[in-house]
């Protein structure tokens, strides 16, 4: 411990902990089990998170994401298994809580009758900062999240998006090595969600390990470094986002077709007979006569089906997968594919 200078606050101690333990994995969860009565919410779940990494926890409602976040945050004692964060066992010890910044999913975690900056100064002081240091740090993080103009406004008058950004500011107050984020953007507009993701990505760029629980598939592409897909309390997939997308086997495509047949032939019936056992063709909606869903039969490749349509003079103007690769992988791995 000689390398660590005498810390003046809890914040300094958390940074010192990171320096001393920088060679160890940031988060190590081993064989986590969580039961509520007879219901098993997490079932022998293990995973690791490295520094400077955004690790997405993906899964449908009830998959166990929030439960896992709460265990990692020390707010819930698991029924079985262990969690080590920078070598410190998860729990209620102060040395553990110095390491964590939490963005809860709920929208009520501030004192609504007092201003944003007073809220942050209060929480900064609970992190061990003296009044002046707390005020300075509160102003810094408010500026970082773009709320400096609303600093002295009561939180009750903040919009939902502003409260989320204030939540990010609070999580960043003590510059923790770990950020646990539970459904931070699920009820934000696209711009608000983008701003929160940018703030979190910036923190990860500074070395913070981020666990980001979400069910929004669109936001993990180009954002998360790794993803663990939870289904019924188990890790149905663990790897990178491209690896997750590679597990997708698209079977359904949206086609825009043009009828090159003589007028008396219907495109739909001609297409169906051309495809035969290769797949099915169905008109999308009632207002359009050129958008179809092509569902491939097992083992059939897309090229064979498109070639069959071309042979009977049906022109394929556009072709795209009905769902994104991430969505398909999600549905398949979460056991929700049609």
């Amino acid at each position, binding site marked *: 411990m000689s390398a660590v200078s005498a810390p003046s606050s809890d914040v300094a101690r958390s940074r010192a902990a990171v320096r001393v333990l920088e060679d160890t994995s940031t988060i190590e969860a081993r064989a986590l089990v969580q039961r509520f009565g007879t219901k098993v919410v997490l079932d022998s779940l293990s995973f690791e998170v490295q520094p400077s990494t955004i690790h997405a926890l993906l899964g449908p409602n009830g998959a166990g994401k929030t439960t896992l976040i*709460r265990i990692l945050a020390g707010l819930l004692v698991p029924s079985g298994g262990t969690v080590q964060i920078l070598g410190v066992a998860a729990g*209620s010890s102060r040395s553990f809580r110095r390491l964590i910044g939490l963005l809860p999913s709920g929208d009520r*975690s501030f004192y609504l009758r007092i201003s944003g900056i007073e809220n942050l100064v209060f929480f900064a*002081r*609970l992190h061990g900062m003296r009044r002046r240091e707390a005020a300075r740090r509160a102003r810094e993080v408010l500026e970082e999240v773009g709320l400096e103009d609303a600093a002295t406004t009561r939180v009750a008058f903040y919009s939902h998006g502003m409260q989320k950004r204030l939540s990010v500011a609070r999580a960043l107050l003590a510059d923790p090595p770990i950020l646990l984020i539970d459904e931070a953007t699920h009820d934000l507009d696209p711009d608000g969600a983008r701003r929160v993701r940018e703030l979190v990505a910036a923190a990860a760029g500074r070395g913070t390990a981020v666990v980001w629980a979400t069910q929004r598939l669109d936001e993990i592409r180009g954002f998360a470094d790794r993803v663990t897909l939870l289904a019924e309390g188990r890790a149905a997939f663990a790897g990178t986002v491209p690896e997750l997308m590679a597990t997708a086997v698209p079977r359904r495509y949206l086609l825009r077709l043009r009828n090159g047949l003589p007028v008396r032939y219907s495109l739909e019936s001609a297409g169906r007979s051309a495809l035969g056992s290769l797949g099915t063709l169905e008109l999308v909606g009632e207002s359009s006569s050129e958008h179809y869903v092509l569902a491939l039969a097992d083992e059939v490749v897309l090229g064979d089906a498109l070639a069959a349509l071309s042979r009977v003079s049906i022109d394929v103007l556009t072709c795209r997968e009905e769902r994104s690769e991430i969505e398909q992988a999600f549905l398949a791995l979460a056991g929700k594919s049609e």
Partner: protein
Amino acid sequence: MSILELEAGHLGALTGELRKLPAFVRRDFLVAWSYRMSFVSDLVNLAGQIVVFYFIGQLVDPSRFPTVGGSAVTYLEFAAVGIALGVFIQFGLDRVSAAMRGEQLMGTLESVLMTPTAPATVQLGSVAFDLIYIPLRTAVFLGGITLAFGLNFSAGGIIPALLLLIAFIPFVWGLGVLTAAALLTFRRGSGFVGLGAVVVGLLSGVYFPLDLLPGWLSGIAAGNPVALTIDGMRDALLGGASLVDIAPTLALLVPFSAASLALGLGSFRLAVRRERRRGTLGLY
């Protein structure tokens, strides 16, 4: 690490925790100040109580009243001390127990407990503002009654009365924390506060001398720390009792207060631990 270094570490941690208390006081002052009308209505309520007891006092024959420290007292003087402490207890119990419940309802409890702050600091911090405000409020009550009705309080009894009050605060705080633990565990706990109100109202001599109770109940009431404190404060403020005179009461009160605080804080710690195990800390 030597014992000295270890002790210095503990001392440093304790100092660090104590430094957080002003943050709680500031937070609660700002929240209370945002409800300015509540401050005003509280003072009006106090004034109303004084007036009511003044008129009740007109119905009581002073000759039938016991003496305090050898001096005859009026019903208003007798009741004023009791009511001041009774309101102090009621208000204290209510506020201490409601502090944690309030955090839970506001959704801030988990956020506070996520900081590297000891649960005991969180508990003490949550009532720190009230521990300052409530004695001030009590002093305003007694000061107001003295000025308005020219009551005969002994100036020499103020210090002994203050000492009794200081010794009594941990007792109320402990009961409040115990109630807070019950609220955290069972969610609804107004019954605990109601029980406190009954004990204060009936078995403490706030409104009438304990001698009027049936013998067996009077015996129980005599050992009630609330009754001990009220008696001691009456002796000090109305009978001019000195520090030496109240020493036996203090000696009885301190163990009660220590036990109450230890029981309250221990229960609260157990309640928080149970909620963490069940994952229901933020549930209300």
